[in-house]
């Protein structure tokens, strides 16, 4: 690239805020390799003096019991979100419905609802429906927020797609359902996968629904499982940090693999009305 020395000056300036923003995550990573004494050392170590993988192993032994629950919840949210949101986005973007504007506005509005205002009444409703202490209850709760978000994201994407193919398929006599499955879905693969990943990440990171609805330990996901390192008499910081890193790893992998697509997906909804 045609970068001059002057350009590198800006790289150096940019390095400072980048380091400040990334340093907390770096500390999560290294604290898991240190003993308790090393963690409390002053000044704090920037590199673990005697790195040991013992705490990562120990944290994993505890956390692996929660892994399956996290996966069930996250995959459940992903599937439910796409099944409900994709057809709705198709209808809003391409089918020219009456009241379409109202529905779009409603989607944007309900997204703004504070999660805590929904958790409390849902807890009572689910208590009666015997959905407390079930994965289904948590999946339903989280999806209430991922669905409107995905509808907005997918509608924005589908609006930008050409009408022509759908028109052609209609003239060929294909039913709407066939058009949706055979024409719309394949074209929208990139947006669908972004919406799916964001729903997955949202569910993986959820903490409020899981901690409110799942009181039985064998049902809890990793986010709640991390509490096992926060005892009554103090936190085992090195185990908690090692566990946190293990819990974050799938997220970091997804983000690195998906890259910019995820970010543009997240901002897509923001500039819509």
């Amino acid at each position: 690239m045609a970068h001059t020395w002057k350009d590198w000056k800006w790289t150096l300036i940019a390095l400072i805020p980048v380091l400040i923003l990334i340093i907390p995550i770096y500390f999560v990573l290294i604290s898991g390799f240190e003993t308790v004494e090393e963690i409390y050392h002053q000044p704090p170590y920037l590199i673990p003096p005697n790195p040991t993988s013992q705490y990562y192993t120990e944290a994993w032994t505890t956390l692996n019991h929660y892994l399956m629950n996290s996966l069930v919840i996250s995959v459940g949210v992903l599937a439910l979100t796409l099944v409900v949101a994709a057809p709705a986005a198709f209808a809003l973007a391409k089918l020219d419905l009456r009241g379409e504007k109202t529905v779009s506005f409603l989607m944007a509005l309900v997204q703004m609802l504070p999660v805590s205002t929904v958790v409390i009444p849902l807890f009572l409703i689910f208590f009666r429906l015997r959905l407390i202490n079930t994965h289904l209850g948590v999946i339903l709760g989280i999806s209430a927020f991922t669905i409107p978000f995905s509808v907005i994201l997918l509608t924005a994407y589908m609006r930008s797609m050409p009408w022509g193919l759908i028109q052609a398929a209609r003239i060929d006599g294909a039913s709407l359902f066939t058009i949706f499955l055979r024409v719309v879905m394949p074209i929208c693969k990139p947006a669908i996968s972004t919406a799916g990943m964001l729903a997955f990440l949202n569910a993986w990171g959820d903490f409020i629904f899981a901690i409110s609805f799942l009181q039985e330990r064998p049902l809890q996901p990793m986010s709640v499982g991390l509490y096992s390192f926060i005892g009554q008499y103090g936190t085992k910081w090195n185990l908690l940090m090692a566990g946190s890193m293990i819990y974050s790893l799938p997220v970091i992998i997804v983000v690195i693999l998906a890259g910019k697509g995820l970010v543009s997906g997240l901002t897509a909804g923001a500039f819509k009305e």
Partner: protein
Amino acid sequence: MGKLKYRLGCYLFLLPAIIYICLLLIYPLIYNIELSFRDVSLISYMRGTSKYLGLGNYQKLFRDPIFHRILCNTAIFMVLSIVFQFVLGLLLALLFNRDFPLNNIFQGLILLPWFVPIMVKGNIFRWFFSDMGTINGFLSSLGIISHPIPWITSKSLPIISLSIANIWLGIPFNFILLYTGLKAIPVELYECAQIDGARQWHQTIYITLPLLKPVIVTTLMLGSIFTIKVFDLVWIITKGGPGNISHLFSTYSYALAMEQFKFGMGAAVAIVMVLIVTAITIGFHCIKVDY
């Protein structure tokens, strides 16, 4: 005939989403309003004997010293978070709008913390802010302080510390929205200004900021809404404590309902919060209509 069937078919695609949102968001919201007028405990709820109180919960709330504290906390938390997130996000966006080596990799590093689960981010700050934690460790090693600062254990500091954590949390979001907005400004405008001899920082003030205004308003609106809703971060770092001094609306409403089983009071706090969110949204919409 075929046309009517086609129309109905269209609505069938939309129906599941509408039903879902009505049952799992709108209905709970309405139910929240109903709860806020009643004295509800888990037992009275199951028996269906919760007493109707009218505005009783709200009256009790407005006399509650913890609630007064929350109003204060929310004001401090919102002003600090939004001002710093926005200004720092904007400066970063302007910086990254330049072309320099490693720009893309750096952007990736800025955005990565955004996706890290809140449970992890909350706990790292709990450790950073603890009396023996990293921040005090650095400060005392550098000789800046002689006693550890009680970041999250004193009577006045916790809400400031929580704001600092929330600013850190919000920078990537502000950055990416503003950066996307900057990228949409046509380069030709700057080229013209350059030919006319405009200085760089004049360009920023007279070209960039006015054209960025819609994006700025959107960013501030979303920032305000996200900030007033914050729950997880505070719950993980201080749980509203010590002694109920660092609560926000969301955490207090949650503590009332899910820990003390005062569902009616919890619902009343939640409704107050929803009213404020609505006011913010309407307020910003009025600003938006201006242009």
